[in-house]
């Protein structure tokens, strides 16, 4: 048995924050931080995925340079983070998270579809679940409403730490619109939306209205007409979908509903969309998602095991999607179903069931960032991106390793050398 990490276990602070501050002058340029580490996993969209003996330079909120130590000159006045036995990775991103608030206020089940609702006001920055998330290396979550109704509202793309107020935590609002197809939103009562027929009708009604609303406003805003359209508060956020500013994330599973979801949101309405869950045999139509280049966001379940359907085999769902050609693959926890801090463990389990380890790391970093249309800022360690960085004692997929240090937007938000270790 051997550790992948050569780091020290058992509470000895192995990380030395060394401020080389001698003679430094306060100027209008922001402070530079340099991380020297054993290995960098970049998760870059293209280019090298790992760098041995790497250096990351950070200025203010942003990453300045990433590369091998021999190629990067560290400015004399930089603050150096010595992490010789640590791996550096981009902060992990979860697109299916329900733990940003109190856990009780994300399912308002009044109407069958609720585009007027958002999770934004329910965020609790002092939330214990978020504190654990950070300790598990999760720096960004798409905090979405539940699946109690067909369209349960708009989610917020938010950081898990680094802010005392809701606004300070927000990465982007709206983060995405949340739709639920299959099972959960089917209602016991006899009203519209009790079955798939009614749900699909009401979704199309709404999407048609929103599309027309966006077109009318766009015409007005671009000066094509002087006729100012009426404000419809419930449709305001939906405009961003048609302008491809943010996607719709759809809770869906089972081959029929995964296919139907792809047809409605991608083929018919041409909206950026994320197929979330995709379990219960959904992999059987994964080839159709691959054909369309659609992102799949798998979890919390990671395997299908139904004797008659799956031949008695324990099939890894992410592996099945990958084998069918789905390259845009991310993993989720559906926290609290899987605790938020175990997002990386979801990646470990996906590897156990056959997924390539690098694909698994990308599935919790750059791929969710791409799927939620924030990859210009987050998801990889590349110059120009936000400094959301983790240090771990080694390969994070091996559960024997852990996160020792987390930076969000250039600010250290967790450091086991200085505070009680949480995970």
């Amino acid at each position: 048995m051997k550790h992948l990490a050569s780091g020290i276990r058992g509470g000895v602070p192995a990380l030395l924050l060394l401020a080389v501050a001698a003679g430094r002058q306060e100027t209008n340029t922001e402070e530079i931080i340099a991380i020297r580490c054993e290995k960098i996993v970049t998760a870059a969209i293209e280019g090298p995925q790992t760098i041995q003996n790497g250096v990351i330079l950070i200025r203010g909120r942003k990453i300045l340079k990433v590369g091998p130590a021999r190629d990067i000159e560290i400015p004399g006045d930089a603050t150096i983070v010595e992490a010789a036995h640590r791996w550096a990775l981009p902060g992990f991103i979860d697109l299916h998270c329900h733990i940003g608030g109190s856990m009780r206020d994300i399912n308002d089940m009044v109407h069958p579809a609720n585009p007027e609702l958002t999770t934004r006001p329910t965020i609790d920055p002092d939330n214990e679940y978020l504190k654990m998330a950070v300790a598990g290396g999760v720096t960004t979550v798409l905090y979405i409403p539940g699946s109690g109704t067909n369209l349960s509202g708009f989610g917020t793309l938010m950081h898990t730490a680094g802010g005392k107020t809701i606004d300070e935590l927000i990465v982007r609002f709206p983060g995405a619109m949340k739709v639920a197809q299959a099972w959960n939103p089917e209602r016991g009562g006899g009203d519209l939306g009790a079955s798939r027929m009614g749900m699909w009708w009401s979704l199309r009604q709404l999407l048609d209205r929103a599309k027309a609303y966006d077109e009318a406003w766009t015409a007005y805003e671009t000066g094509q007409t002087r006729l100012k359209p009426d404000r419809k508060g419930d449709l305001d956020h939906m405009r961003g979908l048609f302008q491809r500013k943010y996607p719709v994330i759809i809770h869906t599973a089972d081959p029929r509903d995964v296919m139907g979801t792809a047809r409605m949101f991608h083929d018919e309405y041409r909206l950026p969309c994320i197929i979330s869950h995709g379990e219960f045999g959904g992999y059987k139509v994964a080839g159709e998602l691959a054909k369309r280049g659609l992102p799949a966001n798998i979890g919390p379940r990671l395997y299908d095991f139904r004797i008659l359907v799956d031949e008695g085999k324990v099939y890894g769902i992410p592996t099945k999607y990958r084998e069918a050609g789905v390259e845009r693959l991310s993993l989720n926890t559906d926290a609290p179903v899987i605790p938020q801090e175990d997002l990386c463990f979801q990646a470990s389990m996906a590897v156990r069931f056959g997924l390539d380890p690098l694909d698994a790391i990308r599935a919790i970093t750059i791929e969710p960032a791409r799927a939620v249309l924030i990859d210009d800022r987050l998801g990889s360690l590349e110059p120009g991106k936000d400094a959301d960085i983790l240090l771990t004692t080694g390969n994070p997929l091996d559960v024997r390793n852990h996160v020792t240090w987390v930076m969000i937007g250039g600010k250290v938000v967790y450091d086991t050398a200085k505070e009680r270790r949480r995970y």
Partner: protein
Amino acid sequence: MKAINYQLAAIGILAVTGVGAQESSPAKPSYVALIGGDVETVTDGLRRGATVLIKDDKILEIGRDVDLPEGTVRYDVTGKIVAPGFVAAETRGLGLGRARSQKIADALDPYQDTIQLALASGITSAYVESGSGGTFEDRTEGVSATSAVIKMSYGNLDGMLVREPAAVNLSSWISGTAAQRYQIRESFRKAQEFIEKLKDHESRKAAGKARPNEQPPKADALELYVQLLRGEIAARMRAPTADATFAALALINEFRFKAVLLDVCEAWTMPEEISRADCLCVMTPRRKWPQDKASNRPSGSSIEQAAILRRAGVRFAVVPLAAWIDTGGIAGRDLQTLPIEAAFAVRGGLDERTALASITITAAEVLGVSHRVGSLEAGKDADIVVLNGDPLDYRTLVDLTFVNGRLLYDRSKSPFYDHLK
């Protein structure tokens, strides 16, 4: 969701039960040898490239130069890890049929469906409790005796039961009413009196001072308490918090009986006290317990608990977050990945040897069956797993599982995982 048709899986499993299985003819012993693996004995270190020779249901010999009797069934396990079958110190729903009865021995179902998945996960022995709803709890005495240690001997009722009862559930000392606590303490006191009376009776009898026809005193309903005081059985108490643990320790220190603290989450705040009381613990490294913000002492769970207890000399077994076999698709949280939960203890600073012990020999100690299972030693039961890698690695799969010397799982012949590398 649990009502899954396992027929196809069963076909795969039954197909392998013939391989290496022995006819139970006492006259003609049968031999099985696992050759060339790295043998993780747990109690006697790692033996690289060694052979494990099994005779019938017991381990006969472990070593590099083992003479194989004629007719030995041989398995080349070069490059694999050979380890004792994993022992689950707590489970729910394993191995018991629908017909629950006062005695677990009468309720065993060797064809129960999840046994196959337990075997595929390397689990060979498990603690079970019957009537978890308290059906058979003897409320007046505040204890439950319907517990047993069973083996995952799929298809074989013989050799399935290891011991019954396996433990006395004394959780009501912590979670029960004041009246229940009174009953428990009274029962211990009366059991002490009984033991004194019995001693007195026996010494007078030995000295020829007993009255003619004098009968020894009877324990009656106190039997389990007498066994507890004599160290023949252990008490199990659920003690997630420090408060609960202090309560348990008070009773243990008063009556000095063998005890197992279950589900400990704040034990790391009081390792010395637990060490002094000499009781065993059962824990789940990832189990979370909130910090008590009104308290002025350390509180809440800690991923470092296992390492802290180890430093204080406290022995413990690790169990998963979900102590059952879950086939619903949530991965890495139930009995199917028991070794991975032990790996989380290593994450918290525990050494790997103790982590492996926590799901083998120490778990067997918790269940009072360490003389038979939990390590690879000559004379012990041939409950053995062959793994395709480091036992604590998240990718490692079970290739072969033997229970009582019988090969009951072969990954290449079972449908579950034969498609994985």
